[in-house]
Structure formats: C-alpha cells, structure tokens
C-alpha cells in the first residue's frame, strides 16, 4: 500500500515536470512578443535618424520656410504653428478639464445626470480623432465662422484631449485621503474652500502629468487638423503676439492660417522626390523628440509624486 502511494507521487511529479516544459516555452514566446514591439520602436527610430540626420543637424532647417527645393525647405512655419496651436489647446482644455474633473469627483450627486456625463467622458475617449475633425469643420469653421485658423485647430485638439485631462484630474483628486477633507470641513470650510485650499494644491502634480500626456497626444495629431482644412504650404508667419507700441499684445495671430509639424511631415512624405523624404524623416525626428520629451517629463513627474507622498 505504501509502495503504491509512493509510486503515485512519483507519477504526479513526473507529470508536473512534463507540463513545466510549457512554462519555459511560453516564457520565451512572451519575450519574443515583447521583442517585436521594442525592435519596431528601435528600427523606426534608427530609420528616421539615418534618413533625417543631415537635415536635422543643419540650422537652416529650423529657420526656413517650406520650399519647392528640398534642400532649402525648412520647418519654421510648422514649429511656430505647432507652438501656437498647443498654446490655444492648453489654455482652453486645462481649465475646462480640471473643472469637470473636480465637479465629477467632489460635487456630483449620484444621479442619472452624473451617470450620463461619466458615460460620455468614457465614450469620447474612444471616438476616432478624425471625427473630431469633422465636428470642428462643421461647427467651428463654418457655424462659428472661425475659418481655417489657429483658434479653430486649438479648440479641436482641446476637445480631443479633454477626456485625458478629466480622467487624470479625477485620479489625482481621488488619491487624496478623505481625512484631509473632513478636517477642513470640521473647522468650518465650505466645499469650494476645501477644493481650492486643499484638494487642488495636493493634486497639482497628478493633474500636470495628465495635461502633459494629453498635449503630447495633441502635438502628433494630424488627421483632425487636415480635416478642418489647414494648408500644407505656408511661407509666412502669423502676426506676432508682441507689439512695439501700445497695447503691446495682439491677438491677430489667433485667426491666422497656419500649418503644424505633423502636416508638414505628411506633405513631404507624399512627395515623390526622394530628397523630400529626408526632410520628412528630419521633421519626424523633431516631432518624435517633442513627444518623447513630454512623455519622459510625465513619467519623471509621476515618479517624483509617488516618492514624495507622505500620507
């Protein structure tokens, strides 16, 4: 009987050992799968770097307008346009997104209206970006009469990243312990005083991370901006926001026609001549550099916040 039992255990051990081979096999398959992703990223970067390096390293590339001649074409109007559009996007998306996040987390009663707002925020994150372009073409460009301007583009991208900002704000606010709110209420604060003096200051880092991630997504968006009718060939700069005489600041640039980095890259990519591909690669590198820098900043901020939290 004892010998029989011993034999059984041996058999089971052998069986498990046999099955464990699959553990090893799958560990290798998993590593290979990740390697596909990581390799693509590296090859993509190397490919851009090899094609784009000569143009990237010449100063003229950043200070010239696009041109019919590939070797003298640059990204001046594109990076100025991208900066201005991002400015409009940040100024409009951040206050609205943060306010919406605060409402949903601190104020919203549990009722059907709140449920509808929450479902909408989730759904909007899944709407294809080109649909935002169509919305903006119909609404901003024609109904509101903004035309193909920096303002229209900035507002379009603001709508696009609004869900990102809202979700980041809510997560940052949610991580603040309830005890802090209760302490503030206990000494007689109103709800807004609690939010303004306690909740917002403690969640600034988290909100900032979300805003940067959102903007890094907006900076690479091409389709919605093409849809509202941005031009691909712009050989002038928008009116300067700073003036020599009173009132020193001008907002004329906000209605100016413009182009942005991804559109400039797209327009060079679709040229048949090979030299323009090198320009496209260089523009891609600049774009990639901006995106990676913003993401690295966000990752660093997130890391610092996690380390500094003391409650």
């Amino acid at each position: 009987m004892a010998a029989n039992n011993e034999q059984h255990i041996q058999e089971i051990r052998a069986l498990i050992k046999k099955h464990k081979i699959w553990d090893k096999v799958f560990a290798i398959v998993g590593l290979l799968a990740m390697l596909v992703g990581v390799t693509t990223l590296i090859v993509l970067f190397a490919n851009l770097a090899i094609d784009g390096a000569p143009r990237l390293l010449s100063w003229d590339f950043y200070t010239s307008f696009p041109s019919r001649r590939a070797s003298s074409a640059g990204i001046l109007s594109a990076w100025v346009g991208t900066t201005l559009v991002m400015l409009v996007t940040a100024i409009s998306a951040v206050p609205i997104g943060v306010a919406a996040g605060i409402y949903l987390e601190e104020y919203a009663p549990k009722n059907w209206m709140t449920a509808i707002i929450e479902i909408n925020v989730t759904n909007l994150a899944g709407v294809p970006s080109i649909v935002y372009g169509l919305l903006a073409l119909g609404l901003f460009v024609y109904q509101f009469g903004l035309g193909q301007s920096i303002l229209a583009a900035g507002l379009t991208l603001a709508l696009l990243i609004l869900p990102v900002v809202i979700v980041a704000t809510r997560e940052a606010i949610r991580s603040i312990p309830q005890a802090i709110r209760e302490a503030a209420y206990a000494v007689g604060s109103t709800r807004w005083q609690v939010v303004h003096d306690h909740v917002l200051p403690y969640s600034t880092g988290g909100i900032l991370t979300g805003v940067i991630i959102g903007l890094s997504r907006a900076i690479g968006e091409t389709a919605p901006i093409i849809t509202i009718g941005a031009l691909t060939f712009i050989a002038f700069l928008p009116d300067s926001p700073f003036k020599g005489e009173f009132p020193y600041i001008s907002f004329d640039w906000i209605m100016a026609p413009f182009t942005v980095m991804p559109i400039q890259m797209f327009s060079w990519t679709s040229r048949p001549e090979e030299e323009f591909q090198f320009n496209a690669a260089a523009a891609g590198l600049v774009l990639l550099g901006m995106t990676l820098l913003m993401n690295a900043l966000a990752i660093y901020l997130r890391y610092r916040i996690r380390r500094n939290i003391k409650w």
Partner: protein
Amino acid sequence: MNSPAQIMNEDFSLPVSSRLAFRFSRHIRERIIEFILLLAASIAVLTTLAIVVILVYESLPFFQHVSLKDFLTDTQWTPLFDDAHYGIMPLVAGTLVTTGVALSVAIPLGTIIAIYLSEFASHKVRETVKPFLELLGAVPTIVFGYFALVFVTPLLQSTILPNLPGFNMLSAGLVMGVMIIPYVSSLSEDAMHAVPMHMREASYAMGATRFQTAFRVVTPAAFSGIAAAYILGISRAMGETMVVAVAAGMQANMTWNPMEPAETMTAYIVQVSLGDLPHGSIGYQTIFAVGLTLILMTLVFNIMGFLLTRRFRERY
C-alpha cells in the same frame, strides 16, 4: 489675568449661533461655483451631442441626393468624377481589411505580452518593459505612416513579396497592428491583475503549472476585461487615419486582398480635405456621410463587445 476663556470672549463677541448662521453671500458664491463646474462637466455631453448633430445635419443633403440603396450596394466610389458613383463598399472593405491585418498582429501579440507580464515576468522586467510599450503608443501616427511607406513596404518587397505594390494595405495594417499592441496589452493586463490571488493559489495547490494556471484559470476569469481590450483595439484600428492615408494609397478600390492598394474611410476624408473644399459642395457632403458611417460601424462593434463582455462577466 487673561484666561483663555476671556480671550475667546474678547475675540468672538458674537454668540456662537449667529457666527455659524446661514450666510447668504457665502451660500450664493458656492452655488455659482458649483454651477460653473457643472457647465464644464457638461461639455462632455455637449460634444457627443454636437458630433451626432453635425454628422447627421451635414450629411442629410447627401442622402437626399443619393439613395441609401445605392450607398450600400454600389461597388464603386467615385463621387468627384463626372461619372459619379456613391457606393461606400470599397471604403468599408478597405477599412475592414486594414483593421483585420492590424488585429491579426495586435491581438495575439498583445494577449501574449499581457499574460507574460501579468503571470510570468518578474517585477523588474515588468517595470522596464512597460514604459517602452507605452512609448510605442505615444509615437505620432504620421511617423508610423512614414515608417510603413519607407521601411516596411520596401522590406517586404525585397524579401518575401517581390510583387507588392508601393502602396498596399498589408504593410499599413502590419504597422498599425504593432502600434495598437500597447492598447490591447495594457488593458488585458489590468484585467488579469484584477483576478483574485486565491484563484491562482487554488490552481497551484492542485498541482497546475504556471502555464496551465495562466491559460485555464486567469485568462477565462479575466475574459470580459480582455474582450474590452480587443474592442478598444478594433475601434483604434478602424479610426486610424494617417498610417493608412500614407501607406495604403488614396484610391478607392473594391478588393479584399491586403496586397493591393486601397482607400479606407478615414483616408478618403483626408484626401478630400486636402483639396479645396467649399462649404456645401458634394465633396463636403460626402466626408460627413463617410464619417457618419465610420462612427456607426464603431458603435456596432462596441455594442457587440458590450453584449459579449456582459455575457462572459465573472463575479468573484
């Protein structure tokens, strides 16, 4: 002698009840702030409404001009030619083929990566690999389009498919697949992470290996979350624009063969938008009709996914 009680009496001469009494000015200020915050939150609802209203309103003239039957059954899409045909099928086919190619890359790889990271990888591997995958999702799509056109297509031409045309749906789909791996893998991993530890422990106690536990216990238990990740992947692939616009060509072509050039719905919208587009012209109307079709297709997939996940939801 000043006792604490006297100081209190000096500083706050009013009785307690009126100090804490309801103050109208303070109350009204709170109400106004709450209302402003509510307005900000309702922009989400307004955006959704505006999308629906604008798409329907701007494509109505198109559907007065073209019958729904022609739109759905005609196999040619040449709205800007003299001999105009308005059959959406070629664009739908292009979208479905590129989406299919992308999913055949993203779903297996994304699922394997999720299972590996959640059940096999050490903490250190996970923390190193995840930022890389996130970066893959952060690269601008136009850069992926350039990569597909300038690197992947020539690579395929010089190795296994010498007859591949310069524009084709295959390389666009493949690159798009790699692009959406992080969306599939990170959501799937979250779902597996949420499976309670005691289920794994029970499985190990029965003598199951990691592989058996991962595939027969964790994956089925997390299936509704994994399916949600697949649905997100499908939505991404169908709505993706720049990769297909750059690498798959801008010529509507009724084909199911990924090795041919074809135009997707999104690429058509880009192609028309690049030209001169007067308000109310037939080109202007068509992009809204195509956009409406796109969003309805996304909606159908999402509803199907919702029903599917509800059917397979596990409760612990």
